[in-house]
């Protein structure tokens, strides 16, 4: 479904991605974990062509693009197969909750307003925000904005969802709820790449875990492998902390 090969990316002389290869099958839920500043967000942004990689190719649903040399048309085609949930939400400031979710349906997918509204309302219901349909993003709490960001992406029913810490601002209750929704969607064949600091999520929901550090993939494998039988010393240390990080 999604194959990326040899992705490299620098910001001036700071090499942030040092050659990333990743293969994701349809319906996979990939958890991207790793320390802060490692390049997880940059990788997702590269897949969505919000950041132009210096090198490498990206294939989505059979369509391949060489990052270095890709036309505006191809980018839009590829982007329409994906949807992204941003770490800092990035809701449209000038649109209400409902409009935020409808926007892509109407403008990109050319659905009728009525149909789009129905779909949007359904998605908003799923994230528990039905009572704030007409609020502007500025009037929402952090968690509420994050949920609308998720609803906006889910409404598009893309082939691949790219989620950048989608539950960072949510309480465990709500977080579990949302992740269950995502899990259900994944079962219908939607592919997901999720960066997360929520190790329990990586452990119990994903079927493939990728551990990145400093622009490299250190280790990847099934959750069981990564959490219970890590091959690399660095992975072992990272995973160990999780046991009880706050006990003093």
């Amino acid at each position, binding site marked *: 479904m999604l194959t990326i090969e040899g992705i490299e990316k620098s910001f001036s002389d700071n090499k942030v991605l040092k050659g990333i290869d990743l293969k994701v099958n349809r319906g996979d839920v990939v958890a991207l974990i790793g320390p802060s500043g490692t390049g997880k967000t940059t990788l997702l942004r590269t897949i*969505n*062509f*919000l950041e132009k990689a210096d090198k490498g190719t990206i294939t989505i649903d059979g369509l391949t693009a060489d990052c270095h040399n890709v036309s*505006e048309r191809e980018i*839009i085609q590829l*982007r*329409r197969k*994906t*949807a*992204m949930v*941003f770490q*800092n939400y*990035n*809701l*449209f*400031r*000038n*649109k209400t909750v409902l409009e935020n979710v409808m*926007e*892509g349906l109407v*403008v*990109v997918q050319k659905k009728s307003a009525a149909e789009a509204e129905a779909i949007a309302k359904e998605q908003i219901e799923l994230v528990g925000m039905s009572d704030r349909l007409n*609020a*502007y*993003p*500025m*009037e929402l709490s952090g968690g509420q904005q994050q949920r609308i960001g998720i609803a*906006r*992406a889910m409404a*598009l029913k893309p082939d691949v969802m790219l989620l950048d810490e989608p539950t960072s601002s949510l309480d465990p209750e709500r977080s579990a709820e949302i992740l269950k929704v995502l899990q259900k969607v994944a079962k219908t064949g939607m592919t997901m790449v999720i960066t997360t600091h929520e190790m329990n999520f990586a452990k119990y929901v994903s079927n493939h875990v990728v551990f990145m550090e400093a622009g490299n993939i250190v280790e990847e494998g099934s959750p069981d492998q990564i959490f219970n039988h890590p091959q690399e010393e660095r992975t072992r240390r990272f995973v160990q902390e999780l046991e009880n990080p706050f006990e003093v």
Partner: protein
Amino acid sequence: MNFDIHVMIDTIWIVFKAVPRTFLLAAVILILGIILGAVLAQVKLRRIPIISTLVNIFVSYARGVPLIVHIYVMMNLLPDLGVSLLSVFGVTMKPHEFPSIIIVIVTYALLEAAVESENIRGAFQSIDPHQIEAGKSIGMTNRQNMIRIIIPQALSVAIPLFLNAFLKNIKGLSLAFTVGVIDILAQARFAAALSYRYLESYIAAALVYWLICGVLQTIFNRVEDKLKFGAVR
């Protein structure tokens, strides 16, 4: 002091006759200016080689040189240009028959474009780049993104600037008198020349201008409030 309020009121009515055409002209110029200015602003923001430099030179010339000189130059250039252009299409016309309204619109719209290109560039600098990314990420084309997300947000800065520009235009048109366009101020001058009531006529003109501005300001304020998107200060 010589001042007759009745004369002034009578003059207001006379002056009012020039409002529709002045208003319309200023509006047409503003709209053309905004459209062309937006294009210029994009070229500047994207720093396209060569073209950017050309645009910068044009903008600096258009803004730097006094209006009266522009009018003088265009008044002398445009008719010949226009007539030779028309002759290509088989229309023959003498340069001095070339309609002065076209001279006015072309000249002012070009200057307006230079001014608006800077206003628009400033307004765009206020946009959070993340907002643009959000649009891209749901698969919008650049054009869709521009129309649905970026422009509405840039407008909250640009709207008051457009009103500024419109008001400058409506007054700047008094120089268009050189090529025979009779605007509000010219109409007031006519009245003054007939009645020898200069003070009254100028005050009448001022009141008419002020009224136009008051109405526009009210409308623009409404629009501006709409563009706050829940961010109350």
